[in-house]
């Protein structure tokens, strides 16, 4: 793999990683304001639309959101909502509220991120009724369990934790009634790439050990050993953001390997260019009309360097390995 500078300071590196949740939020905010997809809740995390993003970025986020949601919803429907969802490194994601609106709520929706990110999210939830109302409504008692870095309710729980400390993560989730017997969906979007291969391997292995019927969806970089990948690594490095786990992002095979080697039964992976071509094409045609893209190569290159990998294990024979695009 390319030579990388070592962390000068772990705190700086972590801070840079935390900052990426703002990238995702502002990009989603802009894309939704343009009509790429509907998200009535993102505005409560990013007040103003902000600076214009390039059309290929908007289309890239569209592919990401539609792609992940496709698999996520398919899993929940397969389990008939009798399941759990754990969003690892959730940032300011709004999926919980979307699932509630669409009557696709799992038994419980967990979100985990760095304590400072979680504290911010909890603050937003507390102060914005459109965010808090759905949580309060689905809670059986009058009061929610709330502290600086966690919020727990019957159907929604957000926990501040470091994903590299798997035993601590396990402890906290179980404290908030994580049920290892329920079919569980774990989701990570541009998360594993920020930790070392051994740290992400531990996390993924813990998931395989803890749940017998589960799916893990991982969205992040792929095909990183070419020039485009190198430039991405250099650009991020300049922001003090190190892709410590980029080794697993060499190819679709390496993405699948990390699951197959840690106890997962099946694994599939597609690059986002392929996913984009498999999304409902009438909607793709609609979003392509929203903004004119001057250089299609930019979109192609971008999409070819991101992938969705989904792994499953299926003791209850729900048919998880058949979930696909």
């Amino acid at each position, binding site marked *: 793999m390319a030579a990388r500078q070592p962390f000068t300071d772990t705190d700086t590196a972590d801070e840079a990683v935390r900052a990426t949740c703002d990238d995702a939020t502002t990009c989603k905010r802009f894309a939704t304001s343009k*009509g790429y997809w*509907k998200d*009535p809740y993102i505005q409560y995390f990013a007040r103003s639309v902000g600076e214009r993003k390039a059309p290929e970025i908007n289309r890239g986020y569209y592919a990401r959101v539609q792609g992940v949601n496709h698999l996520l919803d398919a899993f929940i429907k397969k389990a008939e909502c009798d399941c759990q969802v754990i969003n690892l490194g959730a940032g300011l994601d709004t999926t919980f509220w979307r699932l509630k609106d669409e009557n696709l709520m799992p038994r419980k929706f967990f979100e985990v991120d760095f304590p400072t990110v979680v504290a911010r999210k909890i603050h937003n939830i507390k102060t914005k009724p459109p965010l808090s109302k759905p949580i309060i409504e689905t809670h059986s008692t009058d009061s929610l369990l709330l502290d600086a870095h966690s919020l727990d309710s019957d159907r929604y729980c957000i926990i501040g934790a470091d994903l590299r400390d798997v035993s601590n993560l396990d402890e906290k989730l179980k404290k908030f009634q994580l049920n290892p017997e329920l079919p569980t969906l774990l989701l990570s979007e541009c998360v594993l790439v920020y930790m070392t291969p051994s740290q992400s391997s531990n996390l993924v292995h813990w998931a395989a050990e803890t749940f017998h019927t589960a799916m893990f969806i991982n969205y992040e970089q792929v095909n990183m050993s070419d020039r485009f990948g190198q430039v991405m690594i250099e650009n991020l490095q300049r922001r003090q953001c190190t892709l410590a786990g980029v080794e697993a992002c060499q190819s679709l095979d390496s993405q699948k390997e990390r699951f197959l080697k840690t106890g997962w039964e099946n694994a599939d992976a597609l690059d986002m260019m392929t996913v984009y071509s498999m999304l409902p094409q009438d909607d793709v045609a609609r979003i392509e009309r929203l903004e004119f893209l*001057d250089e299609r*190569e930019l979109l192609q290159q971008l999409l070819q360097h991101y992938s969705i990998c989904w792994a499953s294990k299926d003791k209850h024979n729900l048919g998880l390995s058949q979930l696909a695009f």
Partner: protein
Amino acid sequence: MAEGGNDAELLKEKANKYFKEKDYENAIKYYSEALELNSSNAIYYSNRSLAYLRTECYGYALADATKALEIDKNYIKGYYRRATSNMALGKFKAALKDYETVVRVRPNDKDARMKYQECNKIVKQKAFERAIASDETKKSVVDSLDIENMTIEDDYVGPKLEDGKVTLKFMKEMMDWFKDQNKLHRKCAYQILVQVKDVLSKLPSLVEIELKETEKITICGDTHGQYYDLLNIFKLNGLPSETNPYLFNGDFVDRGSFSVEVILTLFGFKLLYPNNFHVLRGNHETDNMNQMYGFEGEVKAKYTGQMFQLFSEVFQWLPLAQCINSKVLVMHGGLFSEDGVTLEDLRKIDRNRQPPDSGPMCDLLWSDPQPQNGRSVSKRGVSCQFGPDVTERFLEQNKLDYIVRSHEVKAEGYEVTHSGKCITVFSAPNYCDQMGNKGAYIHLRGSDLKPEFHQFTAVPHPNVKPMAYANTLMQLGMM
């Protein structure tokens, strides 16, 4: 919930109060609650629509405004809201219809009339741009400029034209001035633009040059506002001069954030060496592209909207193709959607306009080669893709050897296709700070006209990220 109507009104009052305090999220919340109790109240929808406008959720604002009008088609505010939402979404014609309605119903309302007129201006401007070249002569910015009387302040220490002319000394000073991220005085920028407009307007749409045996020319592709990479080209290949001619094949601006510096430098050299420095129009030398991809924003940030208008006029006069020694044809995009186009056809193109949706002028700026024979629908949604057979027929009919074009980023900076008859050259390395591609330029000697490729990589630039000036649509008058 005994008196649903009354409770709803109370909620609406609450929402209104929040709105006045600029707490739009709560305003939306309480309008929504009011609507839950009374879902056929146009006012609630209209008010919520305005709150959505304030939070830039234009899609929701439009939906609410439409709902309000469905309930009460006589509700004037509903038309306002819908018009404003449509304006924000760039749907000016739709907005105009609603403003028209308001003006009709309230003929004495000055504000309504003003909004109608503003919207009408935008619609007319866009309609004009879309129209086929008409007899109607649009008034030029040049007519309303008084450059003579523009004063340069004493504290401006940057470069100035000498006796109103571009000199080599001026160019060198300007390039250094730009390198240090300084701004050229607007008077100088206007002088350059007015003069280059004059020079370009006298050129034919197809420029024809002859390279003598001992002469050569350097052809560069897209540069896209990457000023520091442009400086690097001059460093590697020498500054332009009578003995070091250049041809820049379009797409000088947009995407990169130093478009102003790039274009003023290229225009400056055009003035200095009019017969040895050539520029052709690219698809990014157009209003639609400039609005979306940063150039318009950059000019407005560094200068004014009026200056952008002038750039737009100048771009319209850029020639569309160049023929070298009657053997090599250069254009930004490529060849044509139909067979039978001749060089004479190109000479005759009336180019002082925005490119039409189709036809030879559009194809010159937009088309791309493809590996397979025949033509296909373009991946870009404009113009076409043309195969080796199309190239072959065109070259044969026009007695040419090959074409050189740009328009597409290439990993190696250039690509030779159609058995050497279609060459692509792209001169913006590490395009958009992310592609990691090399840039290239072509040396062409009069003696053999065989292309010689030179590649180069990106150089560092100040931390102004690409497309920094591509702002969201201007703040439209929101009610």
